């Protein structure tokens, strides 16, 4: 991918010299000539429309260029054309205008800008390139004969879907709100749920060929300035042609691309983003993607769900502990099974050993192969279930789980205890609130199975040491991944495995070293 990208950069550099001549041209001021140039550049597009008219009762020609579908027709008709064709004469007499036009076109430009166009967003540009970009991205271009500047009015307005609860992060209790694709709607949601005057939202542009707006949000005074600078630095470092989704941004700014663990959290829920911002983290929202990114990420965040905070603390604590146990099971259950069955039969409780020996009697495969067969089948079923339409997907899950597992046991391919182990593993992995953690654990499960099949229990220990070594070295934007367990910050433990009662959680997490450390202020 790296090589492909650098090659593309080289090609781009070779291509651009040819384009500089025409696009960097400035507007001449002569409407017909300018229109000709513009038509040559973008007139071939079927959705680009041109409309020429006159300024009020004068003889000045004006042209409006827009993209049908991207622009608000109402805006063009009522405010732009209406303002220029009809409203102008109510401000000045025809003679005054003609005098202005002949003598000082600057006054005319001010006139149009300040007194006749009742449009919110207005930008003055001078080059053909900017007009191209502006029009093709949804603004309306206004050219006036005699003026060497062009006005870009309005912005793209698209139809967006309604604000719904995201499917991937459904909660039992909590606001049923999720981000949508439109950036303005998303930042509006954030502002509304925050209502904080210190909430800062800075805009960046990413993508060399196909540009998109990326916004970082943080709360000034709570987020550490060093963190904000680091985020800005990494965004500026992004060099890619197009960014279809925030997943690309995540992969381009993360610390360690070789690690199976996510170093950036993605979420569709504004309440999650807002609480992260209140802790001192930074959020990134990309136009066109409902998934917002939160940095930095620590391990404890991956096993948390906003629901933990909306329920009372005892229940939330127990559920969190359950999640920890479930993630442990989902990672180690098959490998422990393989280790005990293959190497350490003596360590299993006696009654169970007899039972296992009986059920495994007819199975032709060694435990590793048996485990791999079942695990791979479950993964295949899971992927298949994602693509199928909802009603079929549900029943396939049940069919696949029960009947195929049952049939496999009858056929003698796997033992029934293996089916139990795999089923427990799969169900445990569903308790994890984040999808990318689930994927990481799924991958690691296979590696731990390999270790267990070669070295038994010692292999499982080796694997966990290796995993710990890796996670201990991992950092997300300068924050060690395993905070608060390593480096040990006791104060943050009240939100790690347990969830302390709210009145105890007065301080922001020490791991983020925020200046504003007391919450109540």
């Amino acid at each position, binding site marked *: 991918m790296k090589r492909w990208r650098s090659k593309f950069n080289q090609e781009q550099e070779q291509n651009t010299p040819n384009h500089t001549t025409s696009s960097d041209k400035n507007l001449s001021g002569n409407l017909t000539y300018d229109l000709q140039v513009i038509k040559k550049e973008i007139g071939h597009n079927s959705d680009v429309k041109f409309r020429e008219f006159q300024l009020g009762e004068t003889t000045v020609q004006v042209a409006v260029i827009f993209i049908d579908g991207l622009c608000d027709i109402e805006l063009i008709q009522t405010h732009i054309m209406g303002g220029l064709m009809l409203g102008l004469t109510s401000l000045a007499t025809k003679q005054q205008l003609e005098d202005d036009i002949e003598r000082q076109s600057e006054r005319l430009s001010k006139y149009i800008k300040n007194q006749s166009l009742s449009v919110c967003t207005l930008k003055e540009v001078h080059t053909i390139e900017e007009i191209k970009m502006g029009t093709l991205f949804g603004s309306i271009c206004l050219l006036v004969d005699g003026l060497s500047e062009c006005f870009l009015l309005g912005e793209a307005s698209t139809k967006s879907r309604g604000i719904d609860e995201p499917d991937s992060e459904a909660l039992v209790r909590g606001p049923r709100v999720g981000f949508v694709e439109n950036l303005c709607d998303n930042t509006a949601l954030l502002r509304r749920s925050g209502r904080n005057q210190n909430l800062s939202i800075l805009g960046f542009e990413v993508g060399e060929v196909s540009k998109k707006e990326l916004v970082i949000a943080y709360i000034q005074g709570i987020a550490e300035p060093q963190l904000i600078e680091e985020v800005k630095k990494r965004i500026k470092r992004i060099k890619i042609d197009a960014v279809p989704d925030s997943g690309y941004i995540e992969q381009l700014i993360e610390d360690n691309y070789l690690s199976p663990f996510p170093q950036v959290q993605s979420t569709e829920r504004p309440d999650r983003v807002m609480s992260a911002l209140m802790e001192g983290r930074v959020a990134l929202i990309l136009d066109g993607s409902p998934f917002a990114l939160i940095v930095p990420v620590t391990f404890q965040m991956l096993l948390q769900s906003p629901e933990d905070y909306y329920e009372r603390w005892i229940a939330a604590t127990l559920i969190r502990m359950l999640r920890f146990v479930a993630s442990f099971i989902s990672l180690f259950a098959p490998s422990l099974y393989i280790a005990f069955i293959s190497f350490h039969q003596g*360590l299993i*409780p006696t009654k169970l050993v007899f039972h296992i020996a009986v059920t495994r009697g007819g199975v032709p495969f060694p435990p590793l192969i048996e485990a791999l067969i079942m695990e791979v089948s479950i993964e295949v079923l899971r992927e298949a279930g994602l693509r199928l339409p909802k009603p079929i997907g549900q029943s396939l899950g049940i069919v696949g789980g029960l009947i195929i597992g049952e049939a496999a046991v009858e056929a003698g391919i796997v033992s029934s205890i293996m089916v139990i182990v795999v089923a427990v593993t799969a169900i445990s992995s569903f308790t994890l609130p984040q999808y990318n953690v689930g994927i990481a654990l799924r991958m690691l499960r296979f590696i731990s199975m390999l270790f267990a099949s070669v*070295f038994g229990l*010692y292999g499982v*220990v080796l694997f966990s040491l290796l995993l710990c070594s890796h996670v201990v070295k991992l950092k997300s934007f300068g924050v060690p991944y395993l905070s608060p367990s*390593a480096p*040990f910050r006791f104060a943050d433990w009240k939100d790690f495995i347990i969830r302390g009662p709210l009145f105890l959680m007065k301080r922001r997490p020490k791991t983020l070293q925020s200046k504003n450390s007391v919450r109540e202020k």
Partner: protein
Amino acid sequence: MNSNPVDRISTYQVIMFLANFILGAGILTLPRTLTEKVGTPDAWIGIIMSGLFIILIALLIVRLCKKFPNESFYQFSQKLVGKWLGIIISMVIIIYYICLSAFEVRSMAETTMLYLLQGTPTWAVMMPFLWIGLYLVIGGINSIARMLEIIFPITVLCFLLVIFLGIGIFEIDNLRPVLGMGIKPVIKGLTTTSLSFAGFEIMLVIYMFMKEKKNASKAAIFGIGIPLVFYTITVISVVGSFSVTGVVSQTWPVLTFVRSYEITGLFFERFDSILLVIWIMQIFATFIVSFFAAAIGMAQIFNKKSFHPFLFAIIPIIYLVAMIPEDINGVFKMGDLLGNFSFYTFGALTIFLLFVSFVKEKVNGKM
């Protein structure tokens, strides 16, 4: 090597370093070696006494290190006794650490092969262990410190759990009479007990990495105090359950202790698997610290900025040294040798260097 400003460890992490380094391979055989020497069930008194003595020596070490806040032992020894003598002393210490790493790996391999993997060749057991250690230590002292912070609570919890579950077979009479033969046998066993605290000297190397150097004495006291409590509990439980004669007849008394009680009805009937797992992790902790100490020593002697090439160079040496003992008895002999060496050498060295530093100060002060 200049101390990299990024690589700083907190006081808690220093305590972890000390505690983990001391709690190494020795604990499994400690009750036996001790009771053999002492002969009475008062070995636990010997542990407490030697523990306090070791804490004293550690405080002396801290005193010495405070005079050279940004240098490790390898560097300031050269300053104190001249370049060549300092280098010779450092080389000896580095060889000691290499041998210690090899001993840890080998004893871990022996136990694993005995209890978990009967058919696996030694090299297959040792090599992944060494490579994973290498992967971790490349990350520098911060990674090691964090790893120790994770390993330590797990090992402590599980170990205490496993020991206390054996309360069923514990008989207080096996520990009586207390000081029945007088204090003399205990004194005889003092050197052996001190050997189990080998590792207290790591403060010489990590002092320069501390973030808050004024807490070094506190760190030393806690860092040695925790293994002290551990060892005491272990020896009391094991000797109390087996009695003196029982203990000396077991090669690995602690493992036998864990195997000898059964809790029916729970998921595991036998808990020695947990103990072994924990113990392997603890050995890993000790191994990485001594590995790091050796590599950093070499880097500082040769005045190189990064110790990574030395890591790669030392690993095969460790492997070769670990393969030297032919069987378990050879391993034990090696352990004894190392323990003796550590105690006497570091004890003497500290006093000697402290003396030299006082003399130098006096001389410089006069001039």
